[in-house]
């Protein structure tokens, strides 16, 4: 093909014109893009040619003012979802976790199915959630009575094991995974405020739909499934986030959302999840 087309024989008129045009395009666009336009930066000094080329390619970035002072660092947690953390959680040993979990029965119930409405059910909870909360108790990022002391005696490995154990327990929170069938009444036109908040959120106040992270149908790493959780517990956590008592949510997300909610809305959303949870077990039904 190349031979009878003479694609590289520049004495033929077509290849000559075509290659010439291409060369022209390349030169003109390079000069304009890197030699001219990249020199002029918005709200910044004009760059010399070398810096303009580097910036135009993306090799160098906009320079921040040198060593600006920053506020005292405040972090919500020590946990980051790095691959090593996720690997440790994934490697949790449920059998070993079962032994550790015997210490949890008194409050969190047999098999992690809590009978107390202010204590969360752990059965079926995502192991990453349990792992992170235990670490937050350990580091004092989440403060809640006895859990702080318990957090200090369990190691990271213990946390992963116990998380793995609770994750596979049944009769607790229904599985987070899987798709829910589409259903009408999940948009912003839904009159029931709780259902509206759960499935559609409230964009005007910057509140995303709860279900997008907490299910049903949604998932976010580190966010617990709420369906079937005790309503009183959910409501208390929302209040704690709103009042800043609880601050271990990464990027203030739950604090920001909870501050926007009225007490009635917190109650309604909590009741929605607690009541619609499909009664995990007879003992697990929230008592109100």
């Amino acid at each position, binding site marked *: *093909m190349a031979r009878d087309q003479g694609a590289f024989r520049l004495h033929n008129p077509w290849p000559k014109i075509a290659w010439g045009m291409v060369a022209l395009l390349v030169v003109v666009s390079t000069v304009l893009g890197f030699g001219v336009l990249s020199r002029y930066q918005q709200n910044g000094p004009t760059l010399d040619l070398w810096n303009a080329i580097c910036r135009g390619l993306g090799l160098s970035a906009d320079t921040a003012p040198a060593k600006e002072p920053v506020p005292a660092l405040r972090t919500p947690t020590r946990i980051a979802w790095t691959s090593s953390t996720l690997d440790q959680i994934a490697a949790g040993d449920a059998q070993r976790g079962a032994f550790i979990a015997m210490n949890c029965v008194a409050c969190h119930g047999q098999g992690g199915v809590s009978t107390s409405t202010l204590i969360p059910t752990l059965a079926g909870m995502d192991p990453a959630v349990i792992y992170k909360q235990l670490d937050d108790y350990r580091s004092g990022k989440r403060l809640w009575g006895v859990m702080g002391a318990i957090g200090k005696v369990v190691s990271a490995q213990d946390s992963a094991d116990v998380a793995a154990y609770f994750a596979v327990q049944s009769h607790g929170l229904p599985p987070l995974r899987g798709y829910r069938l589409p259903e009408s009444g999940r948009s912003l036109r839904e009159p029931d405020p709780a259902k509206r908040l759960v499935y559609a959120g409230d964009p005007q106040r910057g509140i995303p739909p709860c279900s997008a992270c907490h299910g049903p149908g949604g998932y976010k790493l580190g966010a617990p499934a709420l369906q079937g959780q005790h309503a009183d517990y959910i409501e208390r956590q929302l209040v704690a986030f709103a009042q800043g008592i609880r601050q271990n949510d990464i990027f203030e997300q739950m604090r920001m959302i909870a501050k926007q909610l009225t007490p009635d809305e917190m109650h309604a959303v909590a009741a929605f999840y607690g009541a619609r949870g499909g009664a995990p077990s007879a003992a697990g039904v929230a008592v109100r």
Partner: protein
Amino acid sequence: MQNSSRLALYHYWVAFAVFLPAVVLGAWQMLIRSPLPAPLDDPDAYYASVTLHGTAMAYVVTTFFAMGFGYAVTATSLGRPVRGVAAAWICFVICLIGTLMAVAAVLAGHASVLYTFYPPLLASSWYYGGAFLLIGGSMIWVVLMIYNMTSWKRDNPGRPVPLAMFAITATAILWAWAASGVIVELVGILLPRSLGLTTEIDAGLARTLFSVTLHAIVYFWLMPAYIAFYTLLPQAAGGRLYSDTMGRLTFIMFIIFSVPVGMHHLFADPEHGAGMKFLQSFLTFFVALPTLLTVFSICASLEIAGRARGGRGLLGWIPALPWGEPMVLATGLSLVMLGLGGFGGLINMGYAMNSMIHNTSWVTAHFHMIFGGAVVIMYFAIAYEMWPRITGKPLQSKALARWQLWLWFAGMMIASIPWHITGLMGQPRRVAVFDYSDPFVARMGPLVIISVIGGAILLVSAILLIVILVRSQLGERRLEAPLRYALAVNPPKTVPAALNGFALWNAILLVLMVFAYGYPIGQFFILKSKVPAYEVSGPTNSVGGVDGP
């Protein structure tokens, strides 16, 4: 029925059978975004629906239509049976399996990532696998088109390849270049991650690779329409093609300029410097050239026809044209939408001006005008032109076809023009539901309702299309009418080698691609930008809830 006719017919039917439900989804999506009540107002259903609508329209309808059109053009323009029919059927089956896999994954709720994938969102491997089979499978068609053209050239040395065949081969080559980006993204990044072979995704690289596809794919969709403009329209109008050479040059320019310009879809992205963005913005200007050339050539061809039919005076040829012919009517309507859509495109590619409309409804409006309007209406016209030739039965009826084309045009205008305006007002794309109690959003309400009406009209038109095609095919009367291509005013006896093949242009495109994409893709081997993936249907790996150890 001739084998190549059956081949074309099967492809067309898959395309149109997918087209109708996809239009239904589109109309419903407009409804749920509007202030009007919609059945099944569930945001999750919207995102699944957008994924399905995009996948169906962008990959399935277009690929099957182009393949079917390619076989029909090959058989008729070369005047001999398609070579490699067995491979063509294998290709058909592979693409169909891919389609079914992808659709099943979306319907199961495991693939709400939209047809543009958006890594690090991660869908089920069935979706990516399906997309790969469909797009990768269509490469068999690409090879068949090139093979048919080159073998004809070998058998007819020194003769010009018929313009229609030259153009469909250009389409195939363009599609191979275009698809290379998405195929590398699927095989190199998304499939391995969704199968659990890798742990991280380079979102910036994935987006850059997809941008190679994202603009050129639009020209892949567009090419059958342009082939109709050049080779079918002049004879339908009763005239001759103004210039055969310019037709060839147009298709060559499409190959060269539609691929190394994809980064204008990434103007707002943080992973590329402004210099590289300017280079591709600059090249994007040249992709307007073949279209501007076509506008003139087509007007000139129509003028010849109109004058031959008795049109007098400067513009008297326009009313003299046979507007009752679906092909002529569709072209007129198509050019109007192409003008409006092209205008939007000139705005989008304008370097910094892109910031004004990036990811707003303006963009949705733009490509619906171009693809949903200008291109798809020509698909209809091509189908109306070809149905009698491949089924051997007359069209039932031309009047109904005219209604269908007018409705499609009206629907698309009514739907898209308000979108342009809401886009300028700042309405974001791909949002399932809007809070119309917010005064900022409320101002867009009336415009959104108007576009819903347009959507309903489009749906009526799509149903009408299927009715016409089914009625025609079930008809009794037999008809013998071979497909005919337009003769140029001066049919060239010979053409320069450069206009009779693609080697030179592929070499030029390769150089331009290295220039435009070499650094933008190469930089990811240095940048540390890999990030974890986020599965859209919840965890399926070991950190998942119920699947624990």
